[in-house]
């Protein structure tokens, strides 16, 4: 992964620079999600088996947590894994699996003990997506794109050694992973780049006081978020995310959405014309409305913003 031995702050700054440069950042499923979980919880044997391929992207990981009836209430998941000799037999359905159409492997939360309190009966299993019985079905989103999928498991045989950590320890790992996911989804540098680009393409509209005021306000909000991110990252130790990481997810996604909204407004009537049509209008303007609609997802995934507020109220403020 190239950052062995880096501090959280160094890693963060490197990530921000990548975003600022518009370089594709490392696949979050590999680097921010399953990678750290394996480092923290997996056996030595499992680490040696999976970490090099995870770092080199020889495995493209997908995240198989959510289910149709288990979204915010993730612990309500029902996909089951039942022992059969050394193996697990998995049945059930995951949904909203981002980029699952490209996935080689999927890390899943499965129910291994239906008899106990729901959080206590969950385990984490790694599943080869080419296994017989795994089926990926596309879901189309409102911008017309295909980035999420349903993943169905029908009597999928998973070797026992693919269990991460101990049986029924899955919820602990899930919470650890989701904390890291939250830090990763406040892409300050990316939003700054979006806003900078908006100023560039709509330069003629900067004469307008309404537009200028809106840009200045967004820039200030972003600065406050950037400084907060640095504070949070600098104080994250031992792989445990700072409790205020929920602020980053909440505000980061709101600002991402606000900037995408500004861009459609700058495009005005040109936003009605689709990106793939023959047109005299600039591509940024024709892409602006689908991008704006697509970013509505940001306040839903990775723990919705209502769930983040609940974490702030409950865990931080003790309410």
């Amino acid at each position, binding site marked *: 992964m190239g950052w062995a031995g880096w501090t959280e702050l160094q890693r963060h700054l490197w990530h921000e620079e990548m975003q600022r440069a518009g370089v594709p950042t490392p696949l979050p499923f590999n680097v921010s999600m399953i990678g750290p979980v394996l480092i923290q919880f997996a056996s030595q044997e499992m680490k040696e088996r999976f970490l090099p391929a995870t770092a080199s992207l020889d495995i493209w990981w997908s995240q198989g947590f959510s289910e149709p009836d288990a979204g915010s209430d993730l612990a309500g998941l029902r996909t089951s894994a039942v022992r059969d000799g050394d193996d697990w037999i998995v049945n059930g359905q995951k949904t909203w699996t981002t980029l699952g159409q490209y996935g080689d492997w999927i890390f899943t939360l499965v129910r291994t003990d239906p008899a106990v309190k729901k959080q206590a009966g969950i385990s984490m299993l790694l599943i080869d997506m080419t296994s017989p019985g795994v089926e990926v079905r596309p879901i189309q989103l409102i911008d017309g794109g295909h980035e999420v999928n349903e993943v169905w498991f029908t009597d999928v045989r998973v070797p026992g050694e693919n269990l991460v950590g101990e049986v029924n320890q899955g919820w602990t790992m899930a919470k650890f992973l989701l904390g890291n996911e939250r830090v990763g989804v406040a892409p300050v540098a990316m939003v700054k780049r979006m806003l900078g680009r908006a100023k560039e393409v709509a330069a003629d509209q900067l004469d307008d006081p309404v537009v200028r005021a809106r840009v200045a306000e967004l820039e200030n909000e972003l600065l406050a978020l950037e400084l907060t991110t640095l504070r949070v990252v600098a104080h994250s130790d031992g792989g445990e995310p700072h409790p205020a990481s929920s602020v980053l997810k909440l505000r980061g996604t709101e600002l991402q959405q606000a900037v995408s909204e500004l861009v459609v407004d700058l495009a005005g009537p040109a936003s009605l014309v689709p990106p793939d049509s023959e047109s005299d209008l600039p591509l940024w303007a024709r892409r602006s409305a689908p991008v704006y609609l697509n970013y*509505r997802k940001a306040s839903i995934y990775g723990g919705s913003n209502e769930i983040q507020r609940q974490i702030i109220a409950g865990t931080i403020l003790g309410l």
Partner: protein
Amino acid sequence: MGALGLPFSEEDGGMGAGPVEVGLVAQEVGRVLAPEPYLAAVVLAGGVVASLGTDAQRAEVLGELSSGNLHLALAHAEPGRRWSDTASSVTATLVGDEWRISGVKEPVLHGDAGTLVVTAALPEGGTGAFLVAGESATTTTATAYDGTRVSRVVLDGARGVPLGEAGADATEGIAVALDRARITACHEALGAMEAALAATTGYLRSRKQFGVPLSTFQALTFRAADMYVAVELSTSMVWWATMVAAERDATATREAAARAALQVSRAGRLVGQEAIQLHGGIGMTAEYLVGNLKAHLTALDHLLGDGSHHLRSLAQGVAAYDALDPLA
């Protein structure tokens, strides 16, 4: 049902109804997301013909439009320009005794029509409006993100028949039609907002997480309540603007249209965004209603001037009066 002829007078082959009836139809169109070009053909294109055409032109074009025999589209917007009452890069020139129109119009709603109403800059200044046969333009049509059909219309010396007095500046008449269309678009948005609110309250009651319906969480029910507040305030503004359009002059209508459009722009964003958010992932999907309602609200918002656009014009006038009076 006569819906196509509602706004036009009986002499012109219409039903002689007014903005109120048109608004009711538009609300239903918005509520069910009907893919009909009602706003585009009847209110926008027909509206320009009604406000500018000669008696003979109105009778012929609006009569055919009202009976459903004619597909009419308004080609007004131009690339590189935001919302404006005038045309600039598309020009009209007089060749002999014929008007020739050249330039690109984009986006044109449902531009693949039999007859186009094209606005164009006049040689002596000002903007004229012309009837142009659909086949004399090169039209490419695509489907916008909300399902609306939008076209790029290229005119290369196409023959145009002036609407009304040849060579006269038609900016006023175009502005009147655009203001009425703004109010109609607000009605469409009202229908879409009401549908989004109904879908959301239904979902909050039926979707269970943590073993209970989402409606158990006050954080969510209060947000649905705020959506309702936004819809109610918009309803009042839109109907007020509709009455103004039905009874008052063009200047009063212009201001009322801007006020209603500002309110609806803000409300449409709130209602559309919250409808998706309160649905969670399912709200993002192409096959589910609320995402489509949000997409259409966004398109309506950017069609004839968004909230900031109207705020800008209203802000310019605030020093000139003490307080607003809806009846003044």
